């Protein structure tokens, strides 16, 4: 059987999600953002919610996310995505509302909005991309930067006396009464990507069922900020990030 016989529409098993358009993504090669974008597009499509989903894009690398997935979007001020999501969900309870935020947006400038939106039990999903660095602005230290990790603003490594400790915001969220589902996933291997997809889908279904707020942290890479190849960055993430940010479900209310 030759290649031409295999490449037929009937034999198609995987293609770029329909909701993901042909705009070239601005992300660096191998960036985890692309994988998560793809998962979100696939899940919305599978849930049949493409006409009823509103995403809130953050400030950070994912600021242009509205260019890549063909659903309704609202851009929020830096860190204020959960507040915008709260308003949208309250005004339109039948819509699937999610915010997509990085560690600088969610765990630094937007900590108050995040914690209070989660604590109020708003029926939204927050997707939290944790790559332990400020990618867009040139690799500065983030609240989630690991101990000893070198960035542009801590060139000798993060020290607790000077910079404090890495913030585990997902653990904090798990203790809040308002949260229904809090989980930490990663997207570096095929099996991890499948698990992350299930987690995001579960979170989306929870928010539509009115069970409370959902936080899905995705431990990600920033190969440009970490100054590694995408392949090495994935390995470094498994060896270092996943030890401090332990993967798995932290809370799942039935």
């Amino acid at each position, binding site marked *: 059987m030759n290649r031409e016989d295999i490449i037929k529409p009937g034999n198609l098993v995987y293609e770029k999600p329909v909701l993901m358009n042909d705009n070239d993504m601005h992300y660096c090669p191998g960036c985890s953002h692309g994988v998560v974008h793809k998962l979100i597009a696939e899940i919305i499509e599978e849930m049949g919610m493409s006409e009823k989903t509103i995403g809130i894009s953050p400030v950070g690398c994912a600021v242009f996310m509205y260019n890549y997935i063909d659903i309704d979007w609202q851009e929020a001020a830096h860190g204020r995505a959960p507040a915008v999501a709260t308003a949208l969900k309250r005004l339109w309870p039948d819509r699937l509302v999610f915010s997509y935020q990085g560690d600088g947006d969610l765990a630094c400038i937007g900590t108050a909005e995040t914690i209070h939106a989660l604590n109020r039990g708003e029926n939204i999903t927050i997707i939290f991309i944790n790559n332990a660095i400020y990618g867009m602005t040139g690799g500065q230290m983030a609240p989630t930067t690991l101990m000893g990790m070198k960035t542009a603003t801590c060139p000798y490594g993060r020290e607790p006396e000077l910079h404090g400790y890495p913030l585990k915001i997902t653990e904090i969220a798990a203790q809040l009464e308002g949260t229904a589902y809090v989980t930490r996933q990663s997207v570096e291997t095929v099996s991890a*990507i499948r698990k992350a997809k299930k987690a995001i889908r579960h979170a989306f279904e929870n928010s539509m069922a009115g069970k409370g707020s959902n936080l899905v942290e995705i431990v990600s890479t920033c190969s440009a900020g970490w100054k590694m190849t995408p392949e090495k960055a*994935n390995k470094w993430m498994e060896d270092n990030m996943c030890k401090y940010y332990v993967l798995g479900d932290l809370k799942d209310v039935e």
Partner: protein
Amino acid sequence: MAKMKGAVVVNTDRCKGCNLCVVACPLHVLALAKTKVNAKGYNYAEEVLEDACTGCTSCATVCPDGCITVYRVKCD
């Protein structure tokens, strides 16, 4: 057991040559083009071992830019 035969089509214009699909493929079907680049200047991924592909979709799943389309047929 029925044998699976697959084929991958890489959107070379969209590919950024991150090499993640090459690492993810269990059968080493893909490799980055050594001497060719796309309009963005990246050495894009291409199929080098066409017969080995089983259409497992690992490469397409890890591709951050959704450049890979996978086809699969069952051979008896």
